[in-house]
Structures are given as structure tokens and as C-alpha cells.
């Protein structure tokens, strides 16, 4: 059973890596690609990284529990915490970083249409939604995750995420 989960963990890690590479490709392109498409690949990369860890931890990837789309908020912060050991960092700095990371994880999870907080937050990267009489397109929406990535510790978040993906690909390939 363990080797089966290991294989799933490796598969999710490699897919997270591929999604990350597309995300970075889209971010680098000019003329620019729509923000919703760029964020979609970031969200998918995060979700697969988290699921790789869940599988490696022994959760059955074919279970209903595994398939839900709301694991990022619950687990991404923990995963990144292990990648963010700032040699010179005070406890206060580390706590501030983790607070920002958790906030970002929450906003990234909300990019998925299945994570709408019981329809309280319908904005997502894939499907149009309604707000009053208006129909809003992801193409035209200003996502708060973009602002957060541009604020304090946003760069560190992306760096830690990339490191976490690389580490997980390495771990699941060599174990």
C-alpha cells in the first residue's frame, strides 16, 4: 500500500512542478496573458503539491476525502513552514511571514470554483459568476491574490513554494 501512495505522491509532485512551470511561463510573457489564467496554474500547482504531501502521509488518493478542493488553506502553510527557515530571522519575522503565507494560501484556494465558502466568495479563475444583476467574468476581475503576491513576503512565498515543489519531487523520486 505504501508504494502505491508513494507513486501517487510522486505523480502529484511532478504535476505540481509542471503546473508551476506553466504559471511562470505565463507570468513572463508579453503581451501579457489574462491574470485569471496565470492564477489558475498557480492554484493548480499549490493543490497538487498539497495532495502529494497528503498521499505521502498515507491518505488514499482515491478516497472522497482526498478529492475535495479545500486542502490548500489547511495544509499549504504547514508545508511551506518547513521551507522557510530564515537564518537571520527573529521569531517576530517568522510569525509575520507565516501569517502572510496563510492568508495567501486562503486566497489561492478561493481561486478554485469549488471553494466558494458556501457561495459567500463566488469569484474564481474559471467560471463567470453573478453579483447582483451583473455577470462577472474571471477575465475582467481584479483578484486579491495578485495584490498579496506583490506585497510583503509575496516574493518569499513564491520562492518557498518553488522550493517546496522541488523538494517534494526529489523526495518522492528518491524514496
Amino acid at each position, binding site marked *: 500500500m505504501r508504494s502505491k501512495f508513494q507513486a501517487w505522491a510522486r505523480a502529484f509532485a511532478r504535476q505540481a512542478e509542471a503546473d508551476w512551470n506553466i504559471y*511562470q511561463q*505565463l*507570468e*513572463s*510573457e*508579453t503581451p*501579457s*496573458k489574462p*491574470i485569471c489564467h*496565470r492564477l489558475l496554474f498557480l492554484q493548480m500547482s499549490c493543490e497538487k503539491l498539497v495532495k502529494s504531501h497528503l498521499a505521502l502521509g498515507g491518505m488514499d488518493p482515491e478516497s472522497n476525502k482526498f478529492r475535495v478542493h479545500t486542502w490548500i488553506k489547511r495544509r499549504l502553510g504547514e508545508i511551506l513552514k518547513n*521551507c*522557510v*527557515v*530564515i*537564518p*537571520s*530571522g527573529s521569531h517576530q*519575522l517568522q510569525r509575520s511571514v507565516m501569517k502572510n503565507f496563510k492568508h495567501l494560501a486562503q486566497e489561492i484556494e478561493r481561486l478554485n470554483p469549488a471553494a466558494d465558502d458556501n457561495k459567500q466568495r463566488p469569484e474564481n479563475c474559471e467560471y463567470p459568476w453573478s453579483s447582483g444583476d451583473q455577470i462577472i467574468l474571471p477575465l475582467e476581475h481584479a483578484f486579491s491574490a*495578485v495584490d498579496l*503576491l*506583490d*506585497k*510583503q*513576503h509575496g*516574493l*518569499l512565498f*513564491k*520562492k*518557498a513554494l*518553488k*522550493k517546496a515543489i522541488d523538494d517534494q519531487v526529489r523526495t518522492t523520486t528518491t524514496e
Partner: protein
Amino acid sequence: MTDKEKQAVELAHRHYVLEEGLEAIYQLVPTAIGLEGAKTIGLLEVNKDTIPSGVVPLFFGPTKTYPFPTLIIEMTPDEFAQMKSGDELVRLPPEWKLGDVIEKPAHAK
């Protein structure tokens, strides 16, 4: 100053204000083989409050405020010293070379 150079300085100043641990920000200049980089702003940030992880180029896509895509490489001061001393483990991608420092603005000191 071109629009791209203005954005590079604006971004660097903003980052100096946001990140207390930033010791220096350098421009990255595209090399002859980095023609694609001509459309991209490159910054190397030396930050004591970051994780040592070698050279990890990260792209930030264009936004309404900042229309040029940005590539940022962030390093610890130790990694930067290693790079300057020619350590092969901390080497810039061949498409980029180190440019001038962007000074920290007075309001960020």
C-alpha cells in the same frame, strides 16, 4: 529614463519599503543570448530575511500598475558574496548579468 527603467526603479523603491531586510537591489541586464529579456525587468535582491536556496528566478507578470513582466532573483547576503566570488553554485542564468545597484530611497531607510 525609459518607461521600463522607471518601472524598475519604482518597483525597487517599493520593495525597499516593504522588506526591511533588503540590503541592496541590483538591476539585471540581459546578455546577448537573453534577447527575450529585453522585454522583461530583471532585479537581483539581496535580502537578509530570506531563505538560502541558490539562484531561483521568479517571474511576476504584468499588472495595470506595472506593465512590464519582472524577473526577480533573491539571495541572502552570503549567497551574494558567493556569487561575486565566482562560486559556480550561485551563478546567474546565462541570459542575465549584474547591472547597477538601485539605491535605497531616503524614505525607506
